[in-house]
């Protein structure tokens, strides 16, 4: 699996974010390079939620950050609302970035414990000198209300006084302060309990509707993604495996890796006995990824062709694209 290719790109007016052939590498000394993201292309339409799914180390977080030029990618283009972010001078990039915000994985450590909730949520407005002091105060109250926190109770408290779920609500309020048009959520619920997860997922859905957001939702859990996304992109070791609608991906995954991910989700039903564990071992090192298809070392259907030639993304069903020489049928 794991291929390049652009067959899945949609060239219509609704595309807000277009990423082409993005490459992110990290030098780790002794001439070694981590191939975190290798020639990944994708696009996101207005009002859509694109989910990026894969195991730890597949490059999904790096990809999300590279969209924001954190750090700038080695090569490739990131075009947001017609502006190529990779070509912008620093100051213009800073201001372009206010339209795109990120919600991070660990809600407790991503908030400064010395700042009050008021300061945390107001900080972006203050940095960008938006509104008068009264207007900012009103905005903070409105944001906190919208994420389900009572401003009178929380404004003067600090993040360590809150639970993980509440901290994630504060993070979301903060990310919405500048009224972004795009929200990139990096595993926003993976640090939370199941019962709180559902609350935050519903909140993100509400915020998306209320603020007309376009969203990129990064997660390792296909079950979480199912509820929130319109389109899913599965990644493995820095490459795209499969792109499609949630219904297509879940009912007939074409990539062997997608299928293994789906079969790894625990089912809360003791009468449904599980078969063998779908995937053995761990992903190979991104310092020296396998030749050809990067998934071939763990793939049940791998052949010589997979080692020799890298599969390109192609359409297997309408709207479903897979990078595999031997897709599941």
């Amino acid at each position, binding site marked *: 699996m794991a291929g390049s290719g652009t067959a899945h790109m949609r060239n219509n007016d609704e595309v807000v974010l277009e990423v082409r052939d993005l490459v992110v590498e990290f030098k780790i000394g002794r001439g070694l390079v981590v191939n975190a993201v290798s020639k990944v292309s994708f696009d996101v339409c207005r009002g859509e939620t694109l989910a990026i799914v894969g195991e730890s*180390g597949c490059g999904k977080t790096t990809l999300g950050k590279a969209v924001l030029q954190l750090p700038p990618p080695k090569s490739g283009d990131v075009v947001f609302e017609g502006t190529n972010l990779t070509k912008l001078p620093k100051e213009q990039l800073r201001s372009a970035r206010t339209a795109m915000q990120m919600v991070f994985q660990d809600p407790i450590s991503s908030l400064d414990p010395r700042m009050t909730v008021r300061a945390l949520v107001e900080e972006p407005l203050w940095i960008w000198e938006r509104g008068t002091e009264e207007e900012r105060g009103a905005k903070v109250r409105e944001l906190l209300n919208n994420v389900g926190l009572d401003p009178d109770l929380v404004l003067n408290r600090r993040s360590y006084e809150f639970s993980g779920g509440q901290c994630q609500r504060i993070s979301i309020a903060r990310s919405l302060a500048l009224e972004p048009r795009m929200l990139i959520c990096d595993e926003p619920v993976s640090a939370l309990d199941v019962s709180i*997860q559902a609350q935050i997922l519903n909140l993100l859905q509400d915020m998306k509707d209320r603020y007309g957001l376009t969203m990129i939702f990064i997660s390792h859990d296909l079950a979480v993604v199912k509820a929130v996304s319109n389109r899913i992109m599965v990644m493995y070791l820095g490459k795209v495996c499969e792109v499609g609608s949630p219904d297509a991906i879940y009912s007939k995954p074409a990539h062997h890796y997608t299928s293994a991910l789906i079969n790894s*989700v625990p089912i809360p039903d003791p009468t449904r006995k599980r078969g063998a564990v779908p995937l053995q071992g761990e992903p190979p090192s991104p310092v020296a990824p396998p030749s050809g298809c990067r998934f071939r070392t763990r793939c049940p259907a791998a052949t010589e062709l997979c080692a020799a030639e890298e599969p390109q993304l192609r359409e297997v069903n309408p709207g479903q694209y897979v990078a595999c020489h031997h897709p599941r049928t």
Partner: protein
Amino acid sequence: MSAILSIRKLVVNFETPRGLLSAVRDVSLEIEQGSSVGIVGESGSGKTVMSRAAMGLLSGSTVRREGTVMFDDKELTAMRADEVRDQFGTGMAMIFQDPMTALNPVRRIGSQLSEGPRVRLGMDKKAARARSIELLSLVRIPDPEAMLNKFPFQLSGGMRQRVMIAIALACKPKLLFADEPTTALDVTVQAQILQLLSDLRREMNMSMVLVTHDLGVVANHTDFVAVMYAGEIVEQAPTTELFSNMKMPYTEALLKSIPKIDSASGARMAVIEGRLPDPTDRPSGCGFAARCSYVQDKCRTEHPPLVDAGNGHLYRCWYPLGHTIGRK
């Protein structure tokens, strides 16, 4: 079958500046020899404190513990700290939640792994090394000899958790406590680790307590489940019985809040609104009343007792599921 661990009327309170915090309230639980028991609940439900108290791992001047814990026909609660410690390794062992911080970062895997066999089983260096290699292959680590010389930071989360399991199994414990062993891991690795634990348990005829917040995890890997809420067991039953004949609204709510792979896309998720009650100020009625969608007046004022529904199924609810009164 006899019980390897039997917890009777366990109460754990902590003294805090805000008053007495009641973490575990009157918990009784039997763990049969060779069985696998799941303890399920949200953060703050008391599941971790309960399992640590049962192992005698809670100490300090602010801890108030009552009740008895019998392990392998010995009364743990009557023992001195050093006598309890002698049970660790060969009697019971624990796998902690976070494989990133549970290993010593400045000691090699080999030295951490051979400590148990050398101290508890009196093995010499050579025998302990051989045992370490055997253990690493047992937890399916490729090239175990090379692993002995590595430091924890050189390993991925899944590999560290395998090493943690190997350390816990080093002295062939009779009972293994696994506290959220897969919460910090990816789904694919989670499936591998859970399968590994189930296989090893069968091979070694070991009993296991699996502490988790995910009912999906217990469904396939336990024989018996106890659901905890606000420091109490609110429902307990054999696993198949629990899932087919759920009595407690809280268990149902927990189950519904799990994102499911076959749910409709874009559908709203079922949530449990609100939070656990304040542990320093427990409500007089049912602890779940404020969040329960079936709540009645009686629930707010009277504390429900544990009711026996037969088949080893106990629950703590005035209006259990399947009951006609108060159903919407």
